[in-house]
């Protein structure tokens, strides 16, 4: 088994380590001086989460190397409170899904046990991944099998295997190897079974009595290690973290701090941060996004794929490598460019990815003006002020925009005899209709500003020959263009509040109520740190609330939208502003 936190890969990421280390001292002070008293109801319910497809792939790649093809066995999740990850504690595994898991397990285990193909230049995986050799390859070897299952099992199940379990798996390997006349075939079958075992695929919050709170419970050390690891790395814990759990160090201040700092400094942090923002930004929709080739001939599948990557690269560079203010993501001109994105940004680009500064006269600044946001929230053949306005509110501010009334007549949007040319003129119809106005007042003043970009994210100043008016306002903050909108969003108090809520719910695996007492604590810490996301992750990971277990809601299946009432209040307040 390999450890990608060491060796070559670690050397490839000196910037992350350096950046993180630079803020470590400050964080240490915050951790050690923070008031110890936590609200009594701080904590989260014990949950059972189904591993996501990315977590599965990351875990397999971490354990067996990136050359293992993991396939795509996982069903897509549905968003709960803005995050796919929160659905993972609600979904069940159907028979069809189990068959897909089993097929993936067979494929992965056969690759791991493959002896390569010299003719095709495929190296033998088994030599590198099985830490011992059987005495005779055509016969069972219990000792070698035990070594493998003990080592692989500890990482896969994220806790040591009992002797009884090891004996059972070795027995299975023995029986299969004898039947197949193949030691590695036997081990393959056992690895397959481990890959569909609920102890691997389900991330269970196992608990123990909390010595600090008599009668209450907290995550046990291994469950805490998993929660830390899936939050920060979006993958299984490494040996070192499991060692710390085994020794009880995750419940000592110095032990937990040491491990969290190590995890924040690891190159695996990038996977964790990418996974969170890919989820929060709704980038899974890129998997099925297409644009009308007649309307936008320069937009190809590669353009859209790179649009997603451009924003994620910008996020990683800004938040991890530069350790910059989260809010400045919405104003920064620094990004990256690829050849496929060149035509949209009107710039020639070399192959691969190169740093790129958005020109001051480009009309662009911040990730709202990236092709990713602009294409994702638009129609295949045209832009949509309403979709963009709605997305900005829901994704970045955690506000909910209600759906349109069922009997609304949209025909005025396309009146063939009309002289209406721009989206602003057309949407005016909605804003003058009382049943539409409430929501359109929430979405349009920001969405219309982004009309300076067409449905493919290309900058424009006119629509149907008419000059586009890009002025607008966000909750009373006026601006004249998309750059101004980015600044207004950057300064919106709801922006960091929303991020805190999303990170904390993501960290604990389920929806967080807006009244959760920890939100205020983390919001304050986040502000004090200058809105550094690494610091926010640290605060959450080191907080007692992160490992405390509190009773769950009475009817979890109806807990799909616990925050809905408060969201409605938010919308009412917003409407009142207009």
């Amino acid at each position, binding site marked *: 088994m390999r450890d990608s936190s060491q060796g070559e890969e670690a050397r490839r990421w000196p910037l992350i380590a350096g950046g993180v280390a630079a803020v470590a001292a400050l964080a240490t002070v915050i951790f050690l001086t923070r008031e110890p008293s936590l609200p009594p109801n701080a904590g989260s319910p*014990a949950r*059972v989460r189904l591993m996501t497809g990315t977590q599965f792939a990351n875990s397999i790649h971490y354990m067996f190397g990136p050359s293992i093809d993991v396939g795509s066995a996982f*069903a*897509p999740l549905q968003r*709960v409170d803005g995050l796919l990850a929160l659905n993972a504690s*609600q*979904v*069940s*595994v*159907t*028979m*069809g*899904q*189990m*068959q897909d898991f*089993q097929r993936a397990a*067979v494929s992965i285990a056969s690759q791991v046990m493959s002896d390569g193909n010299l003719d095709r230049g495929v190296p033998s995986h088994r030599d590198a991944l099985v830490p011992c050799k059987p005495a005779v390859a055509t016969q069972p070897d219990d000792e070698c099998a035990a070594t493998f299952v003990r080592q692989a099992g500890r990482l896969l199940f994220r806790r040591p295997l009992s002797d009884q*379990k090891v004996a*059972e798996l070795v027995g*299975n390997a023995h*029986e*299969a190897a004898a*039947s*197949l006349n193949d030691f590695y075939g*036997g081990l393959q*079958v*056992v690895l397959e*079974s481990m890959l*569909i*075992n*609920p*102890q691997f695929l*389900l991330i*269970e919050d*196992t608990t123990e009595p909390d010595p600090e709170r008599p009668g209450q419970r907290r995550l046990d050390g291994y469950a805490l290690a998993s929660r830390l690891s899936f939050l920060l790395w979006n993958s299984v814990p490494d040996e070192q973290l499991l060692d710390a759990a085994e020794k009880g160090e995750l419940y000592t201040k110095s032990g937990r701090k040491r491990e969290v700092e190590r995890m924040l400094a690891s190159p695996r942090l990038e996977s964790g941060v990418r996974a969170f923002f890919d989820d929060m930004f709704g980038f899974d929709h890129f*998997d*099925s996004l*297409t644009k*009308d*080739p*007649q*309307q936008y001939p320069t937009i190809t599948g590669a353009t859209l794929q790179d649009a997603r990557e451009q924003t994620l690269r910008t996020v990683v560079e800004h938040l991890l490598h530069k350790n910059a203010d989260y809010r400045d993501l919405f104003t920064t001109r620094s990004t990256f460019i690829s050849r496929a994105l060149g035509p949209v940004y009107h710039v020639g680009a070399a192959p691969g990815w190169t740093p790129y500064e958005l020109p001051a006269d480009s009309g662009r600044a911040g990730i709202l003006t990236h092709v990713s946001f602009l294409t994702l929230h638009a*129609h*295949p*053949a045209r832009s949509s002020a309403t979709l963009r306005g709605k997305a900005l509110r829901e994704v970045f501010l955690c506000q909910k925009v209600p*759906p*349109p009334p*069922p009997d609304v*007549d*949209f*025909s005025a*949007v*396309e*009146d*063939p005899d009309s002289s209406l040319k721009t989206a602003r003129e057309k949407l005016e119809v909605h804003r003058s209709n009382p049943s539409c106005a409430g929501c359109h007042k929430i979405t349009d003043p920001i969405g219309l500003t982004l009309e300076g970009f067409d449905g493919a994210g290309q900058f424009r100043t006119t629509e149907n020959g008419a000059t586009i008016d890009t002025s607008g306002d966000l909750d009373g903050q006026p601006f004249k263009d998309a750059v101004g909108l980015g600044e207004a969003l950057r300064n919106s108090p709801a922006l960091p509040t929303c991020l805190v809520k999303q990170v904390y719910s993501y960290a604990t695996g389920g929806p967080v109520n807006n009244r959760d007492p920890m939100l205020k604590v983390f919001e304050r810490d986040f502000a004090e740190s200058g809105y550094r996301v690494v610091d926010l992750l640290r605060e959450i990971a080191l907080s007692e609330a992160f490992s405390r277990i509190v009773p*769950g809601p009475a009817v*979890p*299946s109806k807990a*799909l*939208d616990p925050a809905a009432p408060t969201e409605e209040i938010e919308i009412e307040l917003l409407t009142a502003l207009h």
Partner: protein
Amino acid sequence: MKRPITRRRVLRGMLDGAAVSVALPLLDCFLNGNGTALADGKPLPVRFGTWSWGCGMSKSIFVPKKLGADYDLPEEIVSFKPVRQHINLLTNFNGFRDAAPNLCHYTGWVIQRAGSPPMTNLDRPGQTIDVTVARRISAGTRYQSLSVTATSDERDTLSYENATTVNTAIASPLALYEKLFGAGFQDPNAPDFKPDPMTMVRKSALSGVLEDAKKMQASVGAADKQRLDQYFSSLRDLERQFELQVTRPEPREACVVPTKKSVEQAITGIDAEHVAARHKIMTDLLVMAVACDQTRVFNMLYSKPFSGTTKNGYDKPHHTATHEEPIDERLGYQPNASWFTRRAMENWAYFVEAFSKVKEGDGTLLDNMLIYGTTDQSFAKIHSIDGLPMLTAGRAGGRMKTGLHIDGKGSASTRMGYTALKVMGVDVPSWGTQSNSTSQEIGEILA
């Protein structure tokens, strides 16, 4: 209306909290002198499929004037012509939302497939009709059911196991091919049968996994217990699959294993031409999935309720067109919205025809199937769920009449679901809740 035949009640179970009886099929349900039998005299299985399209219809050019047989084909359904004799067109059925809100493009199909209107967009449908039927008829096949979408987005599915578990769709022809005819496929007509030695040892190794699932079930909270129970059941099903794989499959006369060549080229794009290309290939694969007895239940989604299908050169996707396009005063309908519906109906006709072309027993594959087609609205522009159109195809082994246009006269659309359940041997006293509850079959289409 024909009274249900007497059934031997042998199994009792729970269906969504309501006690139901599940009856074993009697031979005379499925063998009616039309040759629906295998050569060795065993009855051919009757299969169930669903088909769906988004955003309803243009009533004035969709609903035939004539009722019963030889119904006229207004321009939106003119494509039915070669297969009209196989299709029942059911119009003027209603979805009742009772106290629930009218959730756009959602309430209508949920009523038709699960019997109850959802209260919110987050309220999942619960067990959909395909799952209910699959639990009745799918034992012994490789896949309990298969959901397929032509939209290329695997999230586009109308199949739910329960309120928290969705059956994801297979979204590419290649993925469908691999699932059906890739690793693990056993050709029922292969001259030799050699069970894979790996399968036997896999089955043996599975018992420890089952034990671990049971142990975990004991340690989690009440809601998660259910999820663990489902996990455990799925493992049990996998165990049965392993048993099936080491058993020689029965020969299937109609099974012709397709070549991989037809699926190797990826078809991207959501314009109607690309959707149709995917729909065609995936239909052909589904036909052989059924003929080769890989599944007896399937769902094909041509376009989703919020249909995103585009028309090259037209700036609005289907769903947007239904709302934003004005009604042409001269024509009396929305020309572009209707263009999308016509493409949908062409694809439905292809779907039906594909099953009708495969000979099975003395008839065709379609003769031994019931396909149930739904949409989400009647008039999408105003999100109406009154006057919903529905489709069926196939004679369900002789239990159904076909080629009829039926006027529902405003009665509950759930009557078709109830009829389908009866035909497929799921003996429930009623189906649906409140105003959508019905125990009245659509007798005109029962043989």
